[in-house]
């Protein structure tokens, strides 16, 4: 089965090619092809997963691509437990979202293109996951970025969507430049892109005591690589693109901007964990943990103040990705990846649920909704399951993975633990705020006529809800926490399960839910009173800490100003010179024209005129009358005879 792993990214790629080529002529306008591609990939992934349960060694396959010197650049794949887990998440969640899209995108004028892009995304993501060297990881990395750009800007006739896609592309590109330098440092120091060789050489201490600017080179390389993850996983300070990315169709938000692509940053850190782990004093890891913690807390506070259901979920995603980074940073390798997996399922579920609500209400604002619980039962119950999972309520998936992260944080760093705990509290609060606003009470928008979504949309919700309930049990201590054996980093001790921490996590979630219920359901303290009480703090948070404005001031405006200056330089200096050359050219051309007209043309016309005059004179000889010709012949004969006689 592992020998067929290369097929996993190839199948969606084929689907992409077929849909782009044939589009509307395919059954279901290409949707079935796309679903078939990802579903077959999912089947293969499950097969590889089942086969991989037994052994721990990685499977590698290489095709020699570009030889250089004694070694070569290989086009290769690596199937180990980490990749298998990621394959499983991407293909299974992907299959659900592809299916859901059939209903959600129904009637869209660019329907086939949507599925083509989705398939291309799946192929790129799976390439990223399977790559056995940094270079191909980077190729997949950039390809998913491209797909993200295309899909955020899918409704490109909307200016906000076009702007959002450009913002996402440019912001992640900032991180990618850092990552590229990181890859270069690794390659120039170790002479290889392949993970197994990199790790082996790092273990041997190939980086030694090399430093750059006072920092150990290994730490610098790891941090530069992490720069890529900052952009891709929307970590502070490069997180601002993700909320705007919600301009894309909701299935895209679910697949790319919640479940898979944004998790690629976390996956990349886990993939190159050796570099981070071996950096002196875990310097790189500490940085990762703090960035994660700050991101998690910051995004969670913003999420509380947002009224757009997708933006709440977007900030929640940023926050949860921060939590995963925090987990990885506090040596919780398993915890971080475990949370990535559970999060992919319940966040995809939440986004699809939100999509179902938006589909029914034609608005994103939770203030206009209300009472949808009775009108859309399937959406309500599945959304509630997703919310409970995200809030970390026993026994849903999020409980187990968040508990792991809290446990690891508690054992390594108190500050980070407090950050993680506060984030969990806020998470439970803002998610139940959404639940109370959206599904309970009465409908506030009198003009809306909401209805339950078609089965093709609700069935994937139920499947994902099922996973959101059960997938956490792989980390449950009473079944032996198999995830800890499956995803394991050599040299790391697992912190054993602690009942106290589990109770603490549950308590935190309960407090968050209770607070949300008190404010938004029982209205003990009305939300408006709270808002006034918080005053400037609320304004600061609801404006996303003015980070967009700050970036606008620091980067966008200077860039635009420089661009404007360059434009003026172009217009007034370069264009002037060009125009001057043009004018001189025109003047010379005028001169040449006179010469041409009167001398060259004159000669040519003369030749023509002579020929014409001769022709018009001589043509009278050709009368067309045979008798005239005959007369000429007879006269000619007489002349010849006369010449003969009187010679």
């Amino acid at each position, binding site marked *: 089965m592992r020998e067929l792993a290369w097929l996993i990214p190839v199948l969606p790629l084929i689907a992409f090619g077929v849909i782009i080529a044939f589009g509307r002529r395919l059954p279901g306008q290409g949707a079935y092809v796309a679903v078939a591609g990802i579903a077959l990939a999912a089947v293969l992934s499950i097969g590889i997963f089942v086969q991989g349960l037994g052994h721990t060694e990685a499977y590698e396959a290489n095709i020699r691509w570009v030889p250089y010197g004694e070694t070569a650049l290989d086009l290769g794949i690596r199937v180990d437990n980490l990749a298998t887990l990621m394959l499983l998440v991407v293909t299974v969640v992907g299959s659900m979202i592809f299916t859901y899209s059939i209903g959600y995108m129904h009637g869209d004028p660019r329907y086939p293109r949507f599925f083509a892009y989705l398939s291309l995304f799946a192929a790129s993501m799976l390439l990223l996951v399977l790559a056995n060297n940094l270079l191909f990881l980077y190729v997949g990395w950039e390809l998913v970025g491209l797909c993200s750009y295309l899909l955020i800007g899918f409704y490109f006739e909307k200016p906000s969507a076009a702007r959002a896609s450009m913002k996402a592309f440019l912001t992640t590109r900032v991180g990618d430049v850092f990552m590229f330098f990181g890859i270069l440092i690794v390659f120039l120091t170790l002479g290889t892109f392949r993970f197994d060789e990199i790790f082996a050489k790092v273990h041997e201490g190939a980086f030694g005591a090399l430093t750059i600017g006072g920092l150990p080179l290994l730490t610098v390389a790891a941090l530069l690589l992490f720069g890529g993850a900052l952009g891709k996983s929307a970590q502070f300070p490069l997180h601002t693109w993700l909320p705007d990315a919600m301009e894309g169709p909701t299935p895209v938000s679910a697949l790319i901007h919640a479940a898979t692509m944004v998790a690629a940053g976390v996956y990349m850190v886990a993939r190159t964990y050796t570099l981070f782990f071996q950096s002196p004093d875990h310097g790189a890891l500490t940085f990762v943990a703090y960035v994660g913690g700050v991101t998690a807390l910051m995004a969670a506070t913003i999420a509380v103040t947002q009224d757009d259901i997708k933006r709440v979920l977007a900030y929640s995603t940023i926050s949860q990705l921060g939590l995963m980074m925090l987990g990885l940073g506090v040596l919780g390798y398993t915890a971080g990846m475990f949370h990535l997996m559970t999060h992919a399922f319940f966040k995809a579920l939440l986004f699809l649920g939100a999509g179902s609500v938006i589909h029914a209400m034609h608005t994103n604002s939770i203030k206009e909704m209300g009472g949808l619980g009775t009108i859309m039962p399937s959406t309500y119950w599945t959304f509630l399951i997703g919310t409970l999972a995200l809030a970390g309520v026993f026994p849903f998936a999020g409980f187990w993975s968040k508990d792991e992260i809290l446990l690891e944080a508690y054992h390594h760093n108190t500050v980070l633990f407090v950050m993680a705990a506060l984030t969990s509290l806020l998470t439970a609060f803002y998610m139940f705020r959404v639940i109370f606003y959206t599904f309970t009470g009465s409908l506030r928008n009198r003009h809306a006529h909401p209805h339950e979504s078609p089965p093709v949309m609700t069935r994937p919700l139920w499947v994902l809800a099922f996973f959101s309930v059960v997938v956490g049990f792989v980390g449950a201590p009473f079944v032996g926490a198999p995830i800890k054996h499956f995803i394991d980093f050599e040299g790391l001790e697992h912190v054993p399960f602690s009942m106290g921490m589990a109770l603490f996590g549950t308590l935190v979630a309960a407090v968050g839910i209770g607070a949300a219920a008190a404010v938004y359901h029982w209205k003990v303290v009305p939300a408006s009173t709270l808002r006034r009480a918080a005053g400037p703090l609320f304004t600061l948070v609801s404006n996303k800490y003015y980070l967009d404005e700050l970036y606008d001031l620091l980067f966008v405006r200077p860039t635009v100003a420089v661009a404007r200056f360059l434009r003026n330089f172009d217009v007034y200096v370069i264009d002037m010179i060009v125009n001057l050359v043009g004018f001189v050219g025109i003047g010379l051309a005028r001169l040449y024209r006179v010469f041409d007209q009167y001398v060259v043309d004159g000669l040519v016309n003369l030749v023509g005129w002579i020929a014409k005059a001769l022709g018009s004179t001589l*043509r009278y000889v*050709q*009368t*067309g*009358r*045979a*008798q005239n010709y*005959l*007369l000429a012949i*007879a006269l000619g004969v007489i002349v010849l005879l006369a010449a003969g006689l009187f010679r």
Partner: protein
Amino acid sequence: MQLGLVHFLILSALLFCLGLYAVLTRRNAVAILMGIELMLNAANINLVAFNKYVAPAALNGHVFALIVITLAACEAGVGLALVLSAYRNLETVHVDEINVMKW
């Protein structure tokens, strides 16, 4: 006055000139054909006269004259057919009006 070769030659030359004149000046195609007949017959007189006065024993001149008469009959047949065809298509037998060869 004894009839000699010269008299025949003068007759034949006059006849030829009459024929040529007809061919060059007549507008009617039939008249032109008749002119051609005259010219051919002028040649015949020459042939027969030369046979009689230059080589009386030989018959070459007579035979030639007969061949020319046959040829003249053929020519008249083809010529009249052409005239008829031209008349049918162009509704005229006047050669100056049959000017489709002109540029």
